């Protein structure tokens, strides 16, 4: 009995004149052109992230991150509910900065999610977060405020390099590769852009190094 799959493939092949097992010869291409040239990865990343309504801070070393985060949070309404952090960042001295963080994935009521990144992209001011053990995808999604810690060394020029980076590090793609470019938004009512749709209302980036 032929299946829907067989019938669809048969129609595709009869339309195209292709045969089963035929492997297309793709032309070898130079890398795709960038939409906007990248002159300086850190400067361009910062400027483009800010144009996407992310806020950006820059500190010299990892040890300075908790105080930078505390400084940022001081300008927001007080955090009364949970503040979660990716386990790989839990060893920083958060308590010393007066912050009570928990190393776990986020629940809907949590107010702040602090994450690392796999890499970042200067062409568009984008963060790349890979899923996996300790890399809770909910930390950058459910809380109102997402804070991402980005070592400047992981800022790459373009998306192609970011994919290559993930593959190099993980061997194959993890369940989710999430490119994040600013706080969630919608323009579904009267084409008016409103920041803070279903995801975070704020994305704050702390550059390190």
């Amino acid at each position, binding site marked *: 009995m032929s299946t829907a799959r067989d019938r669809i*493939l048969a129609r595709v092949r009869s339309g195209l004149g292709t045969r089963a097992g035929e492997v297309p010869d793709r032309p070898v291409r130079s890398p795709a052109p*960038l939409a906007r040239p990248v002159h300086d990865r850190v400067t361009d990343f910062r400027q483009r992230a800010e144009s*996407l309504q992310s806020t950006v801070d820059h500190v010299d070393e990892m040890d300075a991150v908790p105080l930078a985060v505390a400084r940022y949070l001081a300008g927001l309404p007080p955090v009364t509910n949970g503040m979660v952090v990716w386990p790989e960042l839990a060893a920083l001295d958060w308590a010393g900065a007066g912050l009570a963080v928990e190393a776990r994935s986020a629940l809907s009521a949590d107010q702040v999610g602090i994450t690392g990144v796999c890499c970042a992209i200067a062409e568009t001011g984008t963060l790349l977060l890979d899923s996996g053990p300790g890399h809770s995808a909910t930390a950058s999604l459910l809380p109102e405020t997402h804070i991402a810690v980005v070592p400047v060394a992981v800022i790459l020029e373009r998306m*192609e390099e970011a994919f290559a980076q993930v593959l190099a590090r993980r061997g194959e*793609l*993890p369940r*989710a590769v999430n490119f994040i470019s600013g706080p969630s938004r919608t323009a579904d*009512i009267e*084409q008016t852009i409103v920041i803070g*749709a279903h995801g975070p209302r704020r994305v704050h980036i702390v550059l390190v190094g």
Partner: protein
Amino acid sequence: MDATSHSFKRNVHARLGDEALQANLRRFGGGFADRRRDAVGRVDDFEALRDRASEIRAEVLTHLDHWLLAFEAEATRRGTAVHWAETGAEANQILLGIARAAGVQRVIKSKSMVSEESGLNAVLGAAGIEVTETDLGEYILQLADEPPSHIIAPAIHKSRDEVSALFAEHHGTPLTRDIPALCEEARQHLRPRFLQADMGVSGGNFLIAETGSVAIVTNEGNGRMVTTLPRVHVAITGIEKVLPTLDDLSAILRVLPRSATGQDITNYVSVLTGTRDAGADDGPEQNHVILVDNGRSRLLGGALHDALRCIRCGACMNHCPVYQNIGGHAYGWVYPGPIGAILTPAFLGLEKALDLPQASTLCAACEVVCPVRIPLPELMRTLREQEMEQGLRPWHERLSIRLWRWLALHPALYAVATRWGIRVLRWLAGKDGQVHRLPGLDGWTEGRDMPAPQGSTFRDQWRTQLAAREAQGKARAAATPVAMAAAGAARSKAP
């Protein structure tokens, strides 16, 4: 979805007379074109990006069978179940089967135009499964029980007051004119639904063959919730959406958001592969992809082949003067605007959407902005030709074209007919020089006056001017030797 594309003219009539809709179209329609223009203006060489995107999409289609199988093999290896559906109805049954087997009670959806093709929500609802649309526009329309009127801004035809009235009715909240407050209300209302659902249904902007992934492009974050929180995720998408590699995806993403909303990149691009990572505590336990044909395979290798390059950005409708005036619902099926004028007859059958390929002035604005260079006006012209060849146009239209052809092939008669035609039109126009009503062609004069012809026919004018020019030429030729002789005399007088 039930189509009303066969009664396009009646649909248009109703929409043109709908003052509220007309006001909304005027107020919100232009924003997309302005934003796209600004986004393209920030790019060094947008044409080069379009070239690359078009090449990739064209290449995939020439060996679609290979790329689909490559996708299937890799997705399966990563633990995604790949299903094939010949029709929308089949896709619904597959999805229902998955839901039943997994004991699903509540489904949350992010935007999927293919699920609009198949009418998925009604089928799930009839099976006693609660479905909630979570894209803000789609949620508004679910409350209003209306189909989307735009492929990326589904509720663009609604004003804030209409949205507010819907929310008041369904949420029991007071009316407001504050748009951020309305968005906040939807956020508060939908958050628990995200957390309670046991199945998430999404579309799929692209399928990546080399990694077996589904790529989803969103702004609100609902797409991420739908694919992260419930224990089952099902992506439902068309068979033409494959891209060979992640590099191809990167290249296409340089044109898609810029052409759609005028963003350099959307807030979220999620590339999803397989099920929950070992040792992770979020992500679905089951992941499915339903590949839907529903008329697509028939187009391959045929006259409409290039329409399958479409990446669903909506730029063609955002720049279409016809869409801007009638809105998306008038087109009567899932896809409005120029691409809808091609896909609707292509998927449903030409006889079910006869007037859609005619719903264009062929101004070609759509072709100029299409990020994958689909020759939209040419495809509409092809469909018009097919309608004529298959005898699908109304008898009076066919008769008048035949009459005109006969006349045009008899130049002497044509000259007489046009000379008399001018007189008749002038007589019909009367004193103000405007024809208000053309007997037999009332449709044309119903909404506009036609200025009466002035002067003589083109052919008469041509003949008169030619004669005048010849006479002038002769006169000049006659005058020239005299002038030269005079000049010669002047020179000889010089010292």
